[in-house]
C-alpha cells in the first residue's frame, strides 16, 4: 500500500504533487475501492454502498469520489479542484496542455540546453535517476508530447512553450522553459 510505480506516495505536496496523490487514489483496483472508502474517508455507509454497488467501468464514480475525499482531507478543497481539473485536461482524448492546473516544472532556458531527455524526466521528478529513466524507456513507459521515447540520450529540444512528459499511464508533468 502506498506505492505508485515504485515511488512512495507522500503527504508533502512538494514531494508528491496533489495531482499525483489524486491519481494514486483514482487508479486503485476495482477490488479495493469499497474497503478504501471505508478506511480513508468519512463517507457514510449508505453512500459507500450506493457507490460500490456498480461494477467495472461504472465503478469510475466510486474511484472519483474516493480520490476527491482523500485528497480533500490531505490537501484541502482548492488543491483537489485543481487536481480534478488537471485530470480532465489530460485524460479527455486530446490533452489540453495549456490548462493551468497541470503540475509543472520550470527550467531556465540556459539550463535547458544541454539536458538529455533522461535528465528532463529526473528534473521533473518522474523518475529518481537517469539509470531508471533508461530502464523505463526500454519498457516503453516514457512519453513526450504523445510520442513514446526511444532514445533517452537524445537532447531536449526546448523550442516550444510547453512540453508534456508522461511516465506510465497516469503520471504527467509539464515542462516550461523560462528565460
Amino acid at each position, binding site marked *: *500500500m*502506498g*506505492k*505508485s510505480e515504485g515511488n*512512495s*506516495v*507522500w*503527504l*508533502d505536496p512538494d*514531494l508528491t504533487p496533489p495531482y499525483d496523490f489524486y491519481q*494514486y487514489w483514482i487508479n*486503485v*483496483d*476495482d*477490488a*479495493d475501492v469499497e*474497503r478504501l472508502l*471505508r*478506511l*480513508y*474517508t*468519512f*463517507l*457514510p*455507509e*449508505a*453512500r459507500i454502498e450506493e457507490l460500490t454497488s456498480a461494477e467495472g467501468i461504472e465503478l469510475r*464514480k466510486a474511484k*472519483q469520489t474516493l480520490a*476527491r*475525499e482523500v485528497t*480533500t*482531507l*490531505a*490537501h*484541502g*478543497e482548492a488543491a*483537489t479542484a485543481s487536481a*480534478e481539473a488537471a*485530470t*480532465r485536461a489530460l485524460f479527455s482524448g486530446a490533452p489540453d496542455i495549456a490548462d493551468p492546473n497541470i503540475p509543472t516544472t520550470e527550467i531556465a532556458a540556459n539550463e535547458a540546453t544541454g539536458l538529455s531527455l533522461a535528465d528532463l524526466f529526473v528534473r521533473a521528478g518522474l523518475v529518481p535517476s537517469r539509470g531508471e529513466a533508461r530502464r523505463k524507456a526500454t519498457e516503453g513507459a516514457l512519453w513526450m508530447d504523445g510520442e513514446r521515447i526511444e532514445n533517452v540520450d537524445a537532447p531536449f529540444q526546448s523550442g516550444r512553450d510547453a512540453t508534456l512528459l508522461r511516465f506510465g499511464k497516469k503520471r504527467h508533468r509539464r515542462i516550461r522553459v523560462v528565460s
Partner: protein
Amino acid sequence: MTTTAPIVDNAITEARARRFGPLEYLQSRGYVQDVSDPDGLRQAFAEGVVTAYVGFDPTAPSLHVGHMLGMMMLASLQRFGHRPIALGGGGTALVGDPSGKTSTRAIVSEAEIRSNLESILPQFERYLDFDGNRWGDNPPAVLLNNADWLLSLHYIPFLRDIGRHFSVNEMLAAETYRTRLETTGLNFVEFNYRLVQAYDFLHLFREEQCTLQMGGSDQWGNIVAGVELIRKADGGQAFALVCPLLTTASGE
C-alpha cells in the same frame, strides 16, 4: 466528472445515529484486526474521554500513505470526542524497530528527526484538531516526541524499574525476535526496542492518562508489552488495538 461538495464527517453522525460507540465504528469500517479487551475498551469509551496514541516513525521529512490508517483512527476517535496523541518516535527512531524488518534499520540523527517532526505537524493538522471543539466538544489533539523523555533516561533505574517486568524467554518466543535470531541475528539495541516502546505507553499512561495505543498489526507485540507493563508496574488498565496491514489487490 461530478462536482458534489465533499462530505467529510458524515460517517460519524451516521454511526452515532446507529448507537455505535467508537469501537463499533472502528470495527464496522474495517480498522480493527485485533483488540486486547473489547468489553473493557467499550466501557472506557462509554465512561468518559479516552486518550489514545499512535506512534509515527519520523525518519523522513513527510508522512506517506502508509501512515494514513493510523491518522484516520486517531481522527475518528477525536470526532467521537476522545483525545488523540500523535507520538513522533524521535527517541525510538534512534534505536530502530526490528518489527517486520529483516535487517538493521538506518539510524537517523536527532537534529534530522526534530526537523522532520516540524515539517510533519502541518500534515497532522489536516486530520486532527489541535485547538479543540471543532466537532462539538472534542478535546485538542497533542503531538509529542518521545525523545523528550527517552533521552534523559538513566540506565540503572530503567533496568531496575522497567527491565524487571520483562521475561527474556517470552520475548525470544515472539515472532519478531525469533525470525531475526534464525536469520540475520539480533542486535542488543533492537532487542531493547520492545522495552522502550512499552515504556512510552507507561509514560503516557502516567503523564497523559493515556489508556489506548493503536497501530498496525506488526506492532501488536510491542503494544501488548506496554499494556502488560502498565498492569505490572502501576496496576493500571490499558488497551491495545491494531489495524490490518494493507496490501492492495495489485500487491503494492
